[in-house]
């Protein structure tokens, strides 16, 4: 296999006395869809935040296309083209859809004044081409006036619009209706064709199994399984998520 897009080596994260991530290492290949699975509290979101550069790891190294990233932070990952939909804290409710989509990446003139009309037009376009969620009336609508599903769609639209090399989605479908979820999974498959890698965090194993090329299962801050799709089954993934390392052992023994 060629050099992975991102290699994470020995990531440990401590919050006070609690070790939330314990010596986690893995790779994300180019054009690969990776499923990051695990029960609530396994450390998935923390890992996503560290990979995205918004939270500092206690220890660990990161290699982008083979080159070490020193002092990973959000500015650097943004430069590299990493786009993340965070599970919490994605949008600012008091701001309009347009201002949320372009937050931190405003289209401005030389003086730094925003080109609002242009941003509104692009937002309308992005929402049209990315999501067909009913009930969004205008790009100027405040996010606080949207439903959970609509807000999640806006967050997805933003990430899809700005993604360049790696798209990380932390539980992106929790508020989406079934059909929209299916459509998002379809889109992830299609992204592979465009040369974009993605990481899908979910505790819905069936979603993950449908689209991911590889599955990483986390349990209490440790990586307990890292398998390609063709080497595993939904049953084994279920055993790993529910029973941890012990669950995998019992599942494999049971199969013998």
């Amino acid at each position, binding site marked *: 296999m060629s050099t992975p897009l991102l290699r994470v080596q020995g990531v440990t994260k401590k919050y006070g006395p609690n070790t939330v991530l314990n010596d986690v290492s893995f790779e994300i290949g180019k054009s690969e869809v990776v499923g990051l699975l695990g029960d609530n509290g396994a450390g998935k979101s923390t890992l996503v935040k560290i990979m995205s550069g918004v939270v500092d790891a206690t220890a660990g190294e990161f290699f982008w296309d083979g080159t070490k990233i020193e002092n990973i932070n959000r500015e650097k990952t943004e430069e590299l083209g990493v786009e993340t939909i965070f599970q919490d804290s994605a949008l*600012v409710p*008091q701001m309009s859809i347009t201002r949320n989509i372009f*937050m*931190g990446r405003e289209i401005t003139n030389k*003086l730094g004044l925003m080109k*609002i009309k242009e941003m509104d037009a692009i937002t*309308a376009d992005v929402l049209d081409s990315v999501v067909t969620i009913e009930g969004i009336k205008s790009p100027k609508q*405040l996010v606080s006036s949207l439903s959970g599903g609509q807000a999640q769609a806006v967050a997805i639209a933003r990430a899809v619009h700005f993604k360049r090399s790696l798209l990380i989605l932390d539980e992106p479908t929790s508020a989406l209706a079934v059909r929209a979820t299916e459509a998002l999974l379809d889109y992830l498959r299609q992204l592979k064709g465009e040369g974009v890698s993605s990481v899908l965090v979910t505790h819905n194993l069936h979603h993950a199994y449908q689209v991911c090329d590889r599955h990483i299962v986390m349990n209490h801050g440790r990586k307990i399984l890292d398998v390609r799709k063709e080497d595993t089954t939904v049953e084994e993934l279920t055993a790993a998520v529910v029973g941890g390392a012990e669950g995998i052992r019992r599942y494999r023994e049971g199969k013998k």
Partner: protein
Amino acid sequence: MSNRPPGEKKPVLQAPLATEAITQVKRLSDKQPTTFIGRMKNELQFIRGRGAFEISIVLAVLLIGYIVASVISPTGFAFLNPNNLSGVISQSIPVLAILGLAAGILMIAGEFDLSLGPAITFNAIVFIKFSESFGLAAGIIGGILSGVFIALVNGSIVVFTRIPSFIATLGMSFFWAGASIFVNGTTPAILTKSRDEVMVFLFAQDFGSFRSQLVWLLILGVLAWFFLHRHKLGNHIFAVGGNESAAEAISINSKKIKLIAFATFGGLVGFASILIAVRTSSMQPGGSATQDFTLFAIAAAVVGGTSLNGGRGSVIGIIVGAALIELIRNGLLLAKAPGFYITLFVGITIVIASIFNKVMEGKAR
């Protein structure tokens, strides 16, 4: 899909409804108004829920009431008396509005500065001393930079220690009050030879129907509007105040943005300090003379629809809020109400405005 033109990109989250074949779903980009009137209507619809519109109506009603009362009884309620008008509209309102804008910008970023009053005293003393010793230009620059400096000291404490700004700046308000006595002793700083025609023309001239201060409010109001509502830094201030972790997740440096908000606050307070110093010609160290401004500035912002939790507020709302407070104060004075009435009514206004804000926030949610 059948009702979309061929060759168009397939929506990512397209969720075709069974009924879509019969109910043509209009695209969002086609739905946006193209005419000027249409756009204005659209603006208004989505700008509602931010309070500025409603508070303007309250102000208009109050003004009409005052004008009627003054026409009926020109001596009993001398609102339309030119002296009164110029005093309120051109002196009190501009100063409070500029201070309200300062406090409001900081509140939108999610912070407060309770040392505003003592900071005015300190800035005014710097302005007076520099003007007397080195001339007007040095005085102006000194007064404004003094405001920026004080705010950045306060802001750094808040941002880097993460102590709530209420507590940190409450403590600092005593520090700056003491500092003004430290630099000037206990006797007032007085503008004498430097208070020449140029200084008065710039900051306190009576042009008959208006004064210099009103011109400054217009200039600073327009600048503040562009900064807050049209500049990307303003957008970041709203983002950081509205949801700090969402802003950081998108690589906005919230510490930097908060310090920018503090510095802007300080610059505006420094400027207002100059207006106050030129009008009164002297400043008593210790801060008791300017104490009231701290809470009145926050009150103007709150009455104008600024959220106490950050992330919400508008320049127009804050200016209208300041005007409303000063008009109520003026009306009570004209009606010869005892002094405590004024504090009492301003207090009630603030509480009502906060309740109203809360309701508006609930509606916007």
